């Protein structure tokens, strides 16, 4: 898993999710298949499942939509205890939750098993415009540097007795943000100068270093292939 080149993994996960999103939710055994594939990949990748589960909370805002659907859709209704639920709404809500969960699981395995470096090399391989790859490379490189700067500014604020309280403290935050912009911009200019001094003329060629073999592609293809089998089985058996 970890050894697969970034773009192979990216394309494999994208293909997997396209198949998932295209599957009608009424073929529920197919989704059992999808979840099994995810569990299998998770096991093979030896990633800490629990840590990943904690990060899954980021999908919550959109789930509110999904949870409201059974109560609001109308039409054919059924009862669970005191609740009256719309059949159509429940199915639609379930559809969203299932697919979004698979999507988040997928993205998290991708994120946790891919280094930023292999992702950048992957971008180069799939012929992303060079300017775009370079911007991404600089962003990844300076994320920590700027983050440290931000932490220092926070410490400086707080060691002089600043306490955040509602909108009245916004001018303090925004002047921090303004200073952060100026520092980032000036850093960009200095980096540019340092690049020019070493003969930069617009190209950053040394990022694509990973060798991709046919074996990698075959491993990568297995992932969406299993999904496709699950999809087709579901179509034949349950339509």
């Amino acid at each position, binding site marked *: 898993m970890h050894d697969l080149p970034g773009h192979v993994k*990216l394309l494999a*996960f994208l293909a997997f*999710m396209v198949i*998932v*999103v*295209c599957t009608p939710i009424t073929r529920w055994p197919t989704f059992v298949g999808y979840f099994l594939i995810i569990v299998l990949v998770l096991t093979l990748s030896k990633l800490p499942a629990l840590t990943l589960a904690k*990060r899954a909370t*980021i*999908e919550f805002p959109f789930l509110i*939509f*999904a949870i409201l659907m059974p109560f*609001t*859709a109308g039409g054919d209704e059924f009862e669970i205890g005191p609740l009256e639920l*719309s059949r159509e709404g429940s199915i*639609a809500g379930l559809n969203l939750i299932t*697919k*979004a969960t698979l*999507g*988040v699981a997928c*993205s*998290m395995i*991708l*994120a946790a098993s*891919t280094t930023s470096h292999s*992702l950048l090399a992957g971008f180069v391989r799939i012929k992303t*415009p060079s*300017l*775009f790859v*370079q*911007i*991404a490379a*600089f*962003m990844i490189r*300076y994320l920590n*540097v*700027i983050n440290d700067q931000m932490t220092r500014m926070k410490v400086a604020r707080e060691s002089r007795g600043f306490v955040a309280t*509602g*909108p009245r*403290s*916004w*001018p303090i*935050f*925004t*002047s921090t*943000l*303004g*200073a*952060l*912009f*100026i520092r*980032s*911009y000036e850093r*960009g*200019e200095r*980096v*540019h100068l340092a*690049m*020019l001094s070493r003969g930069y003329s*617009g190209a*950053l060629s040394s990022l694509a270093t990973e060798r991709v073999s046919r074996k990698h592609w075959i491993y990568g293809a297995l992932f969406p292939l299993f999904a496709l089998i699950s999809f087709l089985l579901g179509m034949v058996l349950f339509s």
Partner: protein
Amino acid sequence: MHIPDGFINIPTAAGAAALALTGVGYSVKKAKGELDEKAAPLIGLVSVFVFAGQMINFPVAAGTSGHLLGGALAAVLVGPYAASLALTVVLAIQALLFADGGLTALGLNVFNMSIFGVWSGYAIFLLVRKTLRYSNSALLIGSAVGAFASVPLAATSFSIQYAIGGEGTFAPSTVFTAMFGTHLLIGIGEAIITTLTVGAVLKTRPDLVYGKNKRAKVTS
């Protein structure tokens, strides 16, 4: 506003991705023209700024907090094309390295926030400045109105995508009303933070504010 997988069907997502790619391609061309070989390091650092800016939480009231989207802010500070590229890279990195936003929804998200949100916000900024005849406060008022409008406009763009290929039982009009309404509120916060931040940069390094030096025609 990061749409997850499964919310919008694949044909619509693919269409949005194609539009987003066209917009990004155009921005690459324009940004190279404006910034030359300075483009990569500068926009890269602007991306870090946007990413970090989105992580600063502003206390709102009673324990709740909000944060900046940053599209209009970046457009006023570094121009619409550099801003589009910066936000696109931020969204791509969030989706691929931080599992924020669905893989199949990346095109939708990029179109809404990095292309439509940025360009419409910047166009409104330019219009307001022109209407106010470039007076001293026009830059700040323009930033405020542009930032305010960019948020519900991006939400509108989402609602249109939902109307075309949404997977859900809500009527598109209901989704539009809900999204537009909540994002009007978010837009107010966005406007205040954007304006104060532009003001803070103007105070120390006015030469860096792209929107100050542009009296250009509306481009999008």
